[in-house]
């Protein structure tokens, strides 16, 4: 049975199940929640780990390296925090210390930006760590356990890092299978130190100074250990599959076996790519397509990837990545792939183009992959293409441009000839079939929307559906408008992590959002979709009027959630909104869900459950008229009350705690 966890929560489970003995940490968005979860377990006595509230990442890294000689150690960080660790991380690699890092990938600035890209992972690529990329929380959890297994192998003994894209990975709540402790114990034996410090019988010295003769030998050995990784990782991934039913390779191939056109990438951004690839796969009138999802970035499995491309008969390879390599021809992943294919396949190597996107939290969408496959198609046909990266979503520098008007003049001067010969082909751009139903909440930070969406996700998963909730927020303080998106997939087993952004239901936690100049709540709302508004003062017709929306455009429901919450003495209206959601959206059956809420709802439980009931009962699409003037709730942070009892907070994370970032 899957449990609803955020990517950070899943990573925390990875450390917990690996029985990490020493875990120093320093907060930084977007990976902090992993350390918060571990602190919570430790303070409750659920996890037996020595934690250190470090005073900087430099210290946290120093501490895992110090402790990592005698015990299993790990930590989590991101962005500048990782950069601050880099000065010491070489000592882990050079000292053969198999400690583990979880990285919630984030931009490194300047300008300061707390959102996702791979700049931090790329900055550490010369620090000597094994680097794995996870596509979701489940993979983060699994990779941390496998990471220790690989890192501690006697033929390897190197530190490792598991990367997960910030927010869409670290803050996405979805069903995660938490492995059984006894199985993990079977898979990952207790830490066996090689040259411990606390060993009076055999004192050792770390960090000795070596002259050139010894230094170069040492470095050569370190590289040799790195080159053992692929084989060890393959075995570890296979055995992981045998025990847990989820086998791992060095990369994953999605799509046609024979694929002329391939898009390669790493990590969570594969989610929309996955949907597009499956849609284009086997489609008439276009060549074979595949998505190459690379899991092991360092050491780069050059030979294996080259072989896979040769076997598939790939002609054009577009490499998508969320990071830069200043001053180089290609960014790091494209460069590694280009070198690999060139070395191993010579003149048979596919042509390689580089695309940069997803920087600083830029969305990675389905249409980007449609563009990239179209680009690959053009390249495979022998049309000219750029020898330097393409960029996504830069208006004056599009991938396809037919006339001078569509691009900046200098760029047209430089690339006009290439642009003119490129063809945008409509067959790549059909809208994708909508296999999911999607709900968007607009709320104000502090209203508890994320918590309610996470609860809804848990209830949906328990009723056998597949759900994913991704809150989109940043450095907003209380009161700012944020969105929380939930995707419901009832089409069987295949995981879908990609939003079509066509909302079946849009929810407003606050009727003032209707008139927010920055938010068009109708945007993306399907024809005939549902708009659910928390209000005691606005009638359904008034809401239509404000939006100038016809009867057929949308169905409007209202619920006096603030009033309900107030009546019950609750400081949050989210439980009433949760009940209301069940009224307008019945895919997750209310009766069943309520059973879930009875077990997991935040305190005060009685009132929360009552609020859910009342929210459900008082939701209406009629002209609800209320005499009472609405009083806005003061959002108070009843922090401790939000901590569900026992260990159920594992199941319903206190999303509230994650709301602030920096």
């Amino acid at each position, binding site marked *: 049975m899957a449990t609803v966890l955020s990517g950070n929560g899943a990573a925390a489970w990875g450390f917990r199940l690996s029985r990490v003995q020493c875990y120093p*940490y*320093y*907060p*930084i*968005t977007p990976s*902090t*929640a992993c*350390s*918060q979860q571990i*602190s*919570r377990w*430790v*303070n*409750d*006595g659920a996890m037996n780990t020595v934690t250190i*509230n470090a*005073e*900087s*990442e*430099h210290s946290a890294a120093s501490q895992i390296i110090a402790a990592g000689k005698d015990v299993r150690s790990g930590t989590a960080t991101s962005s*500048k925090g990782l950069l*601050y660790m880099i000065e010491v991380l070489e000592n882990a690699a050079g000292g053969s210390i198999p400690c583990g890092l979880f990285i919630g990938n984030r931009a490194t600035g300047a300008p*300061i930006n707390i959102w996702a890209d791979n700049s931090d992972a790329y900055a550490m690529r010369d620090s000597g760590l094994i680097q794995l990329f996870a596509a979701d929380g489940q993979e983060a959890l699994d990779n941390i356990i496998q990471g220790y297994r690989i890192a501690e192998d006697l033929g390897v003994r190197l530190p490792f890092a598991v990367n997960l894209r910030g927010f869409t990975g670290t803050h996405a709540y979805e069903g995660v299978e938490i492995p059984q402790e006894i199985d993990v114990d079977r898979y990952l034996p207790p830490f066996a130190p090689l040259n411990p410090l606390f060993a009076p019988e055999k004192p050792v010295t770390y960090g000795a100074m070596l002259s050139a003769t010894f230094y170069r030998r040492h470095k050569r050995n370190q590289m040799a250990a790195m080159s053992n990784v692929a084989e060890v990782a393959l075995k570890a991934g296979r055995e992981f599959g045998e025990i847990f039913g989820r086998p791992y390779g060095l990369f994953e191939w999605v799509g046609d076996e024979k694929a002329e056109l391939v898009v390669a990438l790493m990590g969570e951004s594969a989610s929309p790519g996955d949907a597009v690839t499956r849609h284009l796969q086997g489609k008439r009138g276009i060549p074979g397509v595949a998505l190459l999802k690379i899991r092991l970035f360092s050491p780069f499995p050059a030979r294996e990837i080259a072989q896979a491309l040769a076997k598939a008969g790939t002609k054009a390879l577009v490499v998508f990545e969320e990071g830069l390599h200043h001053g180089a021809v290609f960014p790091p992943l494209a460069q590694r792939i280009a070198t690999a294919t060139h070395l191993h396949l010579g003149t048979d190597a596919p042509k390689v183009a580089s695309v940069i996107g997803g920087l600083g939290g830029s969305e990675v969408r389905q249409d980007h992959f449609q563009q990239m496959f179209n680009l690959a198609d053009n390249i495979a046909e022998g049309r000219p293409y750029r020898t330097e990266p393409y960029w996504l979503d830069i208006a004056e520098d599009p991938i396809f441009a037919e006339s001078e008007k569509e691009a900046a003049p200098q760029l047209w001067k430089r690339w006009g000839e290439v642009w003119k010969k490129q063809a945008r082909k409509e067959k790549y751009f059909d809208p994708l079939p909508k296999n999911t139903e999607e709900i968007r909440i607009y709320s104000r930070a502090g209203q508890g929307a994320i918590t309610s969406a996470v609860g809804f996700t848990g209830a949906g998963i328990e009723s056998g559906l597949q759900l994913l909730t991704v809150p989109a927020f940043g*450095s*907003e*303080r*209380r*009161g*700012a408008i944020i969105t929380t998106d939930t995707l419901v997939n009832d089409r069987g087993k295949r995981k879908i992590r990609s939003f079509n952004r066509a909302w079946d239901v849009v929810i407003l936690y606050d009727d003032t959002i209707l008139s927010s100049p920055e938010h068009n709540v109708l945007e993306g709302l399907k024809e005939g979709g549902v708009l659910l508004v928390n209000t005691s003062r606005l009638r359904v017709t008034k809401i239509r009027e404000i939006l100038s929306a016809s009867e057929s455009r949308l169905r409007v429901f209202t619920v006096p959630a603030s009033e309900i919450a107030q009546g019950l003495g609750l400081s949050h209206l989210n439980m009433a909104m949760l009940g209301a959601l069940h009224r307008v959206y019945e895919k997750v059956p209310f009766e069943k869900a309520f059973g879930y809420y009875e077990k997991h709802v935040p305190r005060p439980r009685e009132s929360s459950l009552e609020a859910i009931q009342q929210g459900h009962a008082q939701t209406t699409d009629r002209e609800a008229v209320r005499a009472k003037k609405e009083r806005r709730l*003061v959002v*108070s*942070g*009843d*922090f*401790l009350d939000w*901590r569900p009892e026992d260990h159920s907070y594992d199941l319903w994370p206190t999303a509230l*705690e*994650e*709301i*602030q*970032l*920096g």
Partner: protein
Amino acid sequence: MYNILYNRHIGTTPHSFLLPDPVLDVGEYGAILTTGLSSGHQGCTGCGMVSGTNQVLKALKLTGKHVVASIGTGCNEVITTQNTSCWGNVSVDHNNFPNTGATLSGNVAALRALARAGAASPDAFINLGMAGDGGTYDIGLQALLAWIARGEDGIYVCLNNQAYMNTGVQGSGATPYGTHTSTTPFGKLIRGNQRTPQYLPDLALAAGASYVATACPVQHRDLMIKVQKAAAIEGPCVVEIYSVCPEGWKSETDVFHEITEWALQTRSWILYEAERDRKTNTVLFTLNHVPEKHVGVADYLKLQERFAGMREFPEMVERAQEVIESRWSFWQPVLQANGIQGGDKAHEL
């Protein structure tokens, strides 16, 4: 080490022992006419830090000098610089989180270099450093102490909200004992933050600061006088400002004043200042405020849910009281000299 000398007089005056003339007593009126932060900041409702920063800038405005602010990452920076700047005509240099002291040093050096080249007069500028408690007590301590040790002219303001707020309330080196934060949760086994905080003025004095002071935005006259003194006194000056944070303290947004008053009443926050006379290696300590009544720390724990767990445990409350009493005991000579027994005015009667 340094010799300790107490000022017999309790209270805040514009006079400094290091300055020939008093600074402007601007607290009540003058400052209101000046502008601090411009509108549009994104701080939470009831944020104490916004008020603190505002008052610092207002006080500095009255010196007539141009402020160059080196600010560290944290709430203060994030809420005032997002896609815009709320700093009016202050020049702002945000250069990461661990290095506010070093950035300050760099800007002091630039000013000196400009002065050497005859391109600027040092007297026309104020170098201001600003960071949160995390950026000061923890990750930024090395850079801060090194800046102080260099003896450079400038003001460093620490906005102390007693945790890492910008990243969602994690425990810092300034988090009080027993506090529930997201990394020091009040658990079944370990109850909240187990450490007792260090004190910035102690650290700064040990490193050689010319002037240190604690302040709070509710006592705005006191705060602004102190900032003015820091601006006038030569060498490194450090001002630490108590910053109510409804988000991290889990308090209502409209009890900013009450919480601060309780902090002062219970001596959880002590207002004082200290000036260093380098010739005699003496530091003169002035206590600025003595509570009216003797109030136990339990009252301070009331309005803030971050203490909800610890207030249920008498032994924890007692421990918190001990921390306060041991800190307060430093002021015994002053209290005695003023005929205040037992540490508060009530005992006088």
